[in-house]
């Protein structure tokens, strides 16, 4: 017997944290709204029962305006779980109870969970559980995903609720609305939850309109008063929520003062934005500096290993050149990637990220984007696939597509190895500066592209920004470590799969047909054949081939270079070509994984193709500018 349990709640109340606690998973948790955009499932057993948990995106209401909200609503409506756990933030429970009341209308087995109870206690908030239970008529559990308090009890309650058959009584909206509801209920098929749909119809939800029986006309029932009634419905729910809280909760008036104080400086009129850039610089410098020695160490280790094995026979060459040199050259940069995620982890876990969105919103507005999409794009510094996915949280379709299309220009961590390799070779004395410049350039290119795409591909208005700012939290080391591991391990997996395969292919292409001289290899032939395209940029055949293979995943560029030159230390590139190359790599085609994500998220082939064509074009033009200007200066 499997019990399905759905976790719903406002954004950022700790649904995913709780999910991780419940099933022992390590899903991505961060302190900003909109982290989870698809449903995530996981199972565990408790007292011989299999519990199947589903973590859903955060929502405020079951009326929907964006895709992630739709995911949550459709799940509850079409595949109702055996038990629905509504998670409420103990420090700001009003909105949570509103959602709970809405969920109750779906006639499900509901448990109300008041999470973050640890912080509530610290803030001197007292919650009277039994009073909540009497007023809400559902079981209430107080939990903390951080300390683990109440988790056991939640399991017990799930088992108990699952067996229960009598459901909680619904809210009464008063005669006027109730009579409308019962009239409207007849307009829906029996397979749906009619009361819920009728209420949603009054609230003006478009999807409820689509589920109406064919050939019924509701305009006579829903005359001009609908919007008034919608307000009344919401008001009834909120009044109820406030009454419940009044009797069940003792609040400390000034709970948020410390947060206000911190916000006062971080979002300061004058210094808010400078602080942000200073922190970004520190973050990228940290990525670079802290990891440099480790990178050196691993590199040296792999170097030793290749030397020991040698490359006299085909097999040893495959192992030492193809596998160890090819994959190793990428793996040695993994500490940098982890360091970047460490810095990003602190930024996300502390709750600073949404403040940046707040600060930058005006600037983003001129690009016809919102601060929300700025946040989404920042995720792309980790991996472009995640920012393409996270764009689901954006309610406006045009903004979503624009964000998806410009995501690849955000310099993802897969590009770090490439930059570090080239910078190490060509700019040994200005490593940190060159590295930071690449990131600035990436931001500029992203902004420029957003502008162009908004002008050319899609045209539209500016979009609303309704965003919750979470509380600040001191990021705990374990949370940041989990975050770092979660997002970084992806690169280890890649190293063992796509990069390994690609390295072996590249090895094959450079080993055959003439193992003694790489200039006669297939790789060289391909490179030389295409070299004419890149002649204006001054690339050699090695670069051309590496770029070609690197189309699949950017790290392969490093691995190819390492193999073509027989090790990174043998490469020579002059600074102008190096700069040209880095600029070209910054933009040129998204990796396969990103393209696949773009295709699946936009559900059309058009956008991946636009993305490839546009990015090749723009990066070629930019690289050409760099090459020309560079040659003039030097």
């Amino acid at each position, binding site marked *: 017997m499997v019990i399905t349990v759905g976790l719903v709640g406002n954004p950022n109340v700790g649904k995913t944290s709780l999910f991780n606690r419940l099933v022992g998973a390590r899903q991505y948790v961060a302190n900003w709204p909109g982290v989870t955009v698809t449903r995530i499932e996981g199972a565990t057993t408790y007292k011989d029962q299999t519990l199947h948990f589903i973590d859903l995106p955060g929502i*405020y209401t079951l009326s*929907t305006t964006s895709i992630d909200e739709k995911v949550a609503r459709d799940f509850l409506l079409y595949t109702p779980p055996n038990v629905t756990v509504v998670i409420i933030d103990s420090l*700001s429970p009003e*909105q949570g109870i509103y959602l709970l009341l809405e969920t109750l209308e779906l006639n499900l087995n509901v448990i109300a969970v008041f999470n973050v109870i640890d912080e509530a206690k610290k803030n001197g908030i007292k919650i009277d559980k039994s009073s909540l239970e009497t007023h809400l008529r559902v079981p209430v559990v107080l939990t903390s995903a951080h300390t683990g308090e109440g988790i056991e009890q939640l399991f017990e309650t799930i088992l108990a609720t699952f067996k229960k058959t009598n459901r909680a009584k619904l809210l009464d909206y008063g005669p006027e609305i109730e009579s409308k509801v019962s009239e409207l209920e007849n307009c829906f098929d029996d397979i749906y939850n009619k009361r819920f749909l009728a209420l949603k119809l009054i*609230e003006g939800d478009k999807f409820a309109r689509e589920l109406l029986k064919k050939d019924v006309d509701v305009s006579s029932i829903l005359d001009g008063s609908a919007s008034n009634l919608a307000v009344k419905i919401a*008001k009834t729910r909120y009044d109820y929520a406030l009454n419940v809280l009044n009797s069940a909760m003792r609040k400390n008036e000034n*709970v948020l003062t410390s947060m206000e104080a911190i916000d006062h400086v971080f979002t300061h*009129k004058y210094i808010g934005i400078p602080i942000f850039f200073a922190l970004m610089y520190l973050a990228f410098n940290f990525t670079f500096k802290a990891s440099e020695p480790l990178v050196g160490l691993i590199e040296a280790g792999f170097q030793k290993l290749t030397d020991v094995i040698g490359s006299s026979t085909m097999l040893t060459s495959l192992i030492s050149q193809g596998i160890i040199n090819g994959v190793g050259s990428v793996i040695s940069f993994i500490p940098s990637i982890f360091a970047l995620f460490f810095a990003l982890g602190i930024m996300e876990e502390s709750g600073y990220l949404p403040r940046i969105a707040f600060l930058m919103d005006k600037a983003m507005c001129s690009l016809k984007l919102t601060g929300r999409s700025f946040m989404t794009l920042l995720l792309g510094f980790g991996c472009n696939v995640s920012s393409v996915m996270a764009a689901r949280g954006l309610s406006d379709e045009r903004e979503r597509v624009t964000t998806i299309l410009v995501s690849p220009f955000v310099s993802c961590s897969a590009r770090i190895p490439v930059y570090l390799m080239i910078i190490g070779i060509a700019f040994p004395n200005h490593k940190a500066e060159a590295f930071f410049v690449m990131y600035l350039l990436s931001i500029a290119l992203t902004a420029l592209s957003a502008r162009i795409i908004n002008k050319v591909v899609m045209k539209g208005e500016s979009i*609303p920004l*309704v965003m919750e700012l979470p509380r600040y939290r001191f990021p705990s080391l374990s949370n940041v470590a989990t975050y770092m591991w979660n997002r970084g391990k992806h690169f280890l997996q890649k190293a063992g799969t796509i990069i390994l395969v690609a390295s072996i292919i590249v090895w094959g292409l450079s080993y055959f047909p003439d193992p003694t001289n790489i200039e006669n290899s297939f790789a060289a032939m391909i490179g030389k054949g295409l070299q004419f395209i890149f002649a204006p940029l001054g690339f050699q055949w090695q670069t051309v081939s590496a770029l070609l293979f690197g189309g699949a995943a950017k790290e392969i560029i490093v691995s190819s270079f390492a193999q073509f030159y027989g090790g990174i230390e043998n490469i020579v590139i002059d600074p102008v070509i190096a700069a040209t190359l880095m600029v070209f790599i910054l933009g040129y085609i998204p990796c396969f994984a990103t393209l696949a994500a773009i295709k699946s998220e936009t559900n059309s082939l058009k956008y991946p193709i636009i993305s490839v064509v546009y990015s090749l074009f723009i990066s070629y033009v930019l690289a050409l500018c760099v090459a020309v200007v560079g040659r003039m200066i030097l």
Partner: protein
Amino acid sequence: MKLSEAPTGVQVEVLHIEESDITPRLRGIGILPGIKIEVLKNAPMGDPRMYRVFSKVITLRNSEANLIEVQVSEDSPLPLTFVRPGDYKVEYIEGGKIARMNLASIGIVEGAVIRLLGDRRVQTDKGIYDVGFGKLSKVHVLPMKALFKADNAK
């Protein structure tokens, strides 16, 4: 008054919301007629702004805040530039030392009772003064009537 026009630091009560695509979400967050909202602060260019609805802090762009019609709650201090002529008590003064000293020299200090005249001049214990707009906007006051009511309630 529109929500986007409400000065920072005051508490407003929502009167009416114009229907739009995001109304359901606003309702879900708790922005409804009759609900009190606190205006917290502006972003660097004055847009978007931070508001507190119940215990959650949310940001709205002015284009959305324009859809929300509000009125200032009675017991919320307002900048002197926002009030009608009448008797007021100075609740607090925003701004630096110099501004405070200047204001103090004409008798505007926290806790003082002042009268705003019809021609926008200010009458204090020390006399009648013509105060600049910028300085006036830093002085947050409560009407004497409201104070009287609050005292009675206690």
